């Protein structure tokens, strides 16, 4: 049987260098650092134990301090319990009996004193401390991706990189919003041309002088424009809530358009002729509501980027929704041929009776009522009798 133990062949034979067993890895101990310390070396000790830059443990401690003082409590507990490089801990935890009981009682007392701060102030301050820490971390990561300068070095270097990274994030956000607006309101070719130009500049820079910092804003611009294009958002029709109540086919337009907001086309009092009546609605971001008389057959073709199509009591939602429901109608029945284009939002067709209020995407006054069941085939055949909900 093989053994890892060193064989001794006699007192005169000394083991050569090759025969000596490999040195056993020294067990790591979590101790307070004497050399790398700002207050008591707790953060330095943790950083050394986990082999990371002490800046991160200090940022975490400061961020936790905003969480109702949890960082201060933990620091105090670590100060009491962690031994120093030089010797023992402030409180000796190695012993048995009385010492251990005292430590448990002490930590319990600390928690008892601190819990109102942890629960009360923490909820408020966590809204600042944790997002701040996340922002700093994101800044370091982004700058690492952009420049290749990793999170190493002294605290001043890391802070500089975090600030530069946060600057890139802010720049990306501004470009993202501006790009989305330009894609929705400007000429269709504008943003693609800007992205292609930026790409060409980055390619040329790869051979001359790399301009990597241009990549994140250009990518943000392209992604924002892509989402706007894929959703089909167009701000040409304006912004706000629009209600149209045509009384006759003379007042009824072929097309109703809105950029952002709620568009309501109420046809319940419109004198509609028998046969097909075409209607187009186009909303970039928001909701299109079409209210029809109960005896009107509705043929719907709806294209929704992200959102929902609600036809009376039927729902169809998701991404790239293509809803087709085109029943045939008998000649003496009015058939509304609805063609809806919605970027992000909902198109809704209802045959509600009576007055209503429509705010924030909801019908006021109808919320507690079930909407009526509707047999579309019967309506289109002119024999529609619907049970009231």
């Amino acid at each position: 049987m093989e053994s890892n133990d060193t064989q001794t062949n006699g007192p005169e034979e000394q083991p050569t260098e090759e025969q000596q067993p490999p040195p056993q890895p020294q067990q790591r101990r979590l101790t307070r650092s004497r050399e790398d310390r700002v207050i008591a070396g707790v953060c330095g000790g943790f950083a050394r134990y986990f082999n990371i830059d002490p800046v991160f443990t200090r940022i975490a401690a400061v961020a936790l301090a905003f969480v109702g003082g949890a960082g201060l409590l933990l620091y105090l507990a670590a100060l009491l319990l962690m031994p120093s490089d030089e010797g023992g801990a402030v409180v000796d935890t190695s012993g048995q009996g009385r010492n251990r009981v005292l430590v448990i009682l002490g930590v319990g007392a600390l928690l008892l004193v601190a819990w109102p701060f942890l629960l009360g102030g923490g909820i408020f301050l966590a809204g600042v401390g944790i997002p701040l820490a996340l922002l700093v971390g994101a800044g370091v990561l982004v700058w690492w991706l952009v420049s290749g300068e990793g999170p190493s070095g002294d605290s001043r270097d890391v802070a500089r990189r975090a600030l530069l990274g946060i600057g890139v994030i802010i720049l990306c956000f501004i470009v993202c919003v501006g790009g989305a607006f330009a894609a929705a309101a400007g000429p269709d070719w504008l943003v693609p041309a800007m992205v292609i130009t930026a790409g060409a500049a980055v390619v040329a820079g790869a051979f001359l002088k790399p301009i990597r910092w241009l990549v994140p804003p250009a990518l943000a611009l392209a992604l924002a424009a892509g989402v706007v294009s894929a959703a089909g958002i167009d701000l040409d029709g304006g912004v706000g809530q629009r209600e149209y109540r045509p009384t006759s086919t003379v007042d009824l337009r072929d097309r109703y358009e809105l950029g952002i907001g709620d568009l309501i086309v109420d046809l319940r009092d419109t004198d509609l002729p028998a046969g097909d009546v075409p209607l187009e609605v186009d909303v970039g971001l928001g909701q299109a509501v079409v209210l029809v008389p109960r005896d009107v057959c509705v043929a719907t073709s709806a294209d929704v980027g992200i959102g929902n199509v609600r036809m009376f009591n039927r729902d169809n939602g998701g991404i790239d929704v293509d809803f087709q429901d085109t029943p045939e109608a008998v000649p003496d029945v009015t058939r509304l041929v609805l063609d809806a284009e919605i970027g992000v939002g909902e198109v809704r067709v209802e045959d509600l009776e009576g007055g209503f209020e429509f705010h924030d995407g909801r019908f006021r006054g109808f919320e507690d009522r079930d909407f009526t069941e509707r047999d579309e085939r019967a309506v289109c055949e002119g024999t529609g009798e619907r049970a009231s909900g």
Partner: protein
Amino acid sequence: MRAARPDIPALVAGLALLALGSVLLLDALGLIDLGFGLFAPVACAVTGAILLANGLSRRA
């Protein structure tokens, strides 16, 4: 005389941006119909290529 070696991550990122911009331009010209079904994989592929090139070059 040898040409300078290009910066690979920047080259990949630039080409990826060119590809993404071309897709957007084709949609703007009405030659393709860009929906989320097409845009989502293209955006993921472009972002992934840029991150991959960046990570691999750093590793090398």
